[in-house]
């Protein structure tokens, strides 16, 4: 029993990483209706920026705020320069664009900061949290940050005019335009916010997985899986999905014989697919009704 609770705790700790990433994934999905494959690389690049700032002597929280601002602007710039011209292109062409962006960012980061693994500081310390060896204060801090983000996002989308306009632009673009919403800029804003949230995720994850250009590869996959599991339309679902995926993964690694680290990912994905077969819109997503 103790093993079980410990594995759940460890799962929650890793799940916090996925939850963070899944939140960023859902954000951009809300704004642009696609999954952005380059999201992890954008977050990685932002994290490197903050690392560079700290190397230059900027204190942690100063670097944090500057990185947020940089990511927000960079996200908008990427949308305006690269994806606005593709707005009328087929969806699959857009997906190819994400893959191209992925290749570019990964390669440029590798050239600037090379592929050696770097330590990344945490503002929360890394001592055991509440006497448990399985969750460190950093991981607890990360869960806290994720929850704060979620609340802020909820407030933003529920109670601000811009949030309402963004929701309108995402769900019914034509009608939104008719009531005077600049839908094109709402999409850019979505990109900026997703990039900023991604950068927070990156800065929270980096102390755990260490900083290097490929750090997000695995995390993004779990982030996608978490977002899809929770339902792509629900930020709350994404966070829950993140924790669930973390727990699934740990329990599968412990209790299913023959599952080493290698098979953890396929098993977690298989479980998620099983859930989706039963509930195709995800656990907390709204089912869509289709008409001919």
């Amino acid at each position, binding site marked *: 029993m103790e093993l079980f609770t410990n594995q759940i705790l460890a799962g929650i700790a890793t799940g916090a990483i996925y939850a963070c990433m899944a939140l960023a994934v859902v954000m951009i999905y809300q704004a642009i209706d696609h999954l952005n494959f380059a999201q992890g690389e954008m977050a990685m690049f932002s994290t490197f920026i903050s690392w560079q700032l700290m190397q230059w002597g900027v204190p942690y929280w100063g670097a944090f705020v500057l990185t947020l601002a940089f990511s927000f602007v960079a996200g908008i710039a990427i949308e305006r320069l690269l994806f606005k011209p593709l707005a009328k292109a087929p969806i699959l062409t857009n997906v190819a664009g994400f893959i191209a962006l992925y*290749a570019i960012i990964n390669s440029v980061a590798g050239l600037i900061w090379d592929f050696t693994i770097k330590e990344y500081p945490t503002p929360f310390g890394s001592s055991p949290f509440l006497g448990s060896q399985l969750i460190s204060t950093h991981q607890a801090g990360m869960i806290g940050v994720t929850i704060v983000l979620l609340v802020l996002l909820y407030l933003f*989308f529920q109670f601000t005019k811009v949030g309402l306009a963004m929701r309108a632009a995402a769900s019914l673009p034509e009608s939104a335009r008719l009531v005077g919403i600049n839908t094109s800029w709402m999409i850019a804003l979505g990109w900026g916010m997703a990039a900023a949230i991604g950068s927070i995720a990156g800065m929270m994850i980096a102390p755990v997985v260490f900083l290097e250009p490929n750090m997000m590869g695995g995390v993004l996959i779990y982030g996608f899986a978490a977002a*899809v599991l929770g339902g792509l339309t629900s930020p709350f679902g994404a966070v829950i999905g993140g924790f669930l995926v973390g727990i699934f993964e740990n329990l599968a690694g412990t209790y299913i014989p023959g599952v080493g680290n290698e098979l953890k*990912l396929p098993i977690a*994905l298989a479980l998620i697919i099983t859930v989706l077969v039963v509930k195709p819109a995800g656990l907390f997503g*709204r089912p*869509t009704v*289709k*008409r001919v």
Partner: protein
Amino acid sequence: MSAVQEIVTEAPAVEAVPKRAMTLGTGTSLVMLAVLIVAPLFVKNFIIFQLTMLLIYALAVLALNILTGGSGQFSLGQSAFYAVGAYTSAILMEHGGINYALTLPVSGLVCFAFGYLFGQPALRLSGVYLALATFALATAMPQLLKLDYFEKWTGGVQGLVVTKPDAPFGLPMSQDMWLYYFTLAVSIAIYIFSVNLLKSRSGRAFMAIRDNEIAASAMGIDVAMYKTLAFGVSAGITGVAGGLGAIAVQFVAPDGYTITLAISLFLGMVVGGVGWLPGSIVGSAFIIFVPNIAENISKGLSGAVFGVLLFVVIFLVPHGARQIAMLAEQLAGKLRRN
């Protein structure tokens, strides 16, 4: 967010391509064929090998094109089918001592069955959910091939070495050249099969499902049957391509069939034009040669150069090579009228 259910008009993720626009005219096809037959006579063995790989990847892209462009289902798992085909051929040749040409139909059938079975649970999923499911398959496959349990057959992490066949009947040509013509013959057969498939009743059913699933089922099309059939056919062709790939590369190993391969095949399909079968060879050329070109331009930034080149292509021709072919056709039509 409102509690009312969201009602959307089903917009197909893959644009509707009319049946006739999916293939080339007879004249153009014959010219293409002549080029492919004559090409290897003038180049070195290594380039012949690359041309062989060009045809093999073109087959794999074609298979994805039937699935996505034909039936509107998206797959990031093609590398798994490719791997199963490659391993089936390699194991039959090395452990079973069976002639390489005979292993290909077996690979095709095994993958058809595999794809058909995989298509069953995939029926409930569409769009990003299907992408995730197929993606899971692609990430799981290399790990499964590495399992100790199968090591006796698969060679584990090390993989298997495959012997390259000689030209039969004492034909005076190098192994590479023979393999090229052999691949070309298989590719032509599969291409003709695919064109005919899409022109047939089944092909029309695929396209009806792609354009509007609900309307298709209202017209009496067995949606579940045709969707899984599309998966099976696509997997089968990919399996044959995988088998050919194993023979050409003379080696199979789990790490040769990662998700990167599936992504490459996807890019090949987009660059060639989704739903345009002849574009498969253009897409295949893109995924084989452009990474090399990028490497030559800058070693350290090869990924960035590749990304930029890809952006250039999708900015210029968002609909892939099909767009160029259509422009050429319009131009030719105009000239004829003048």
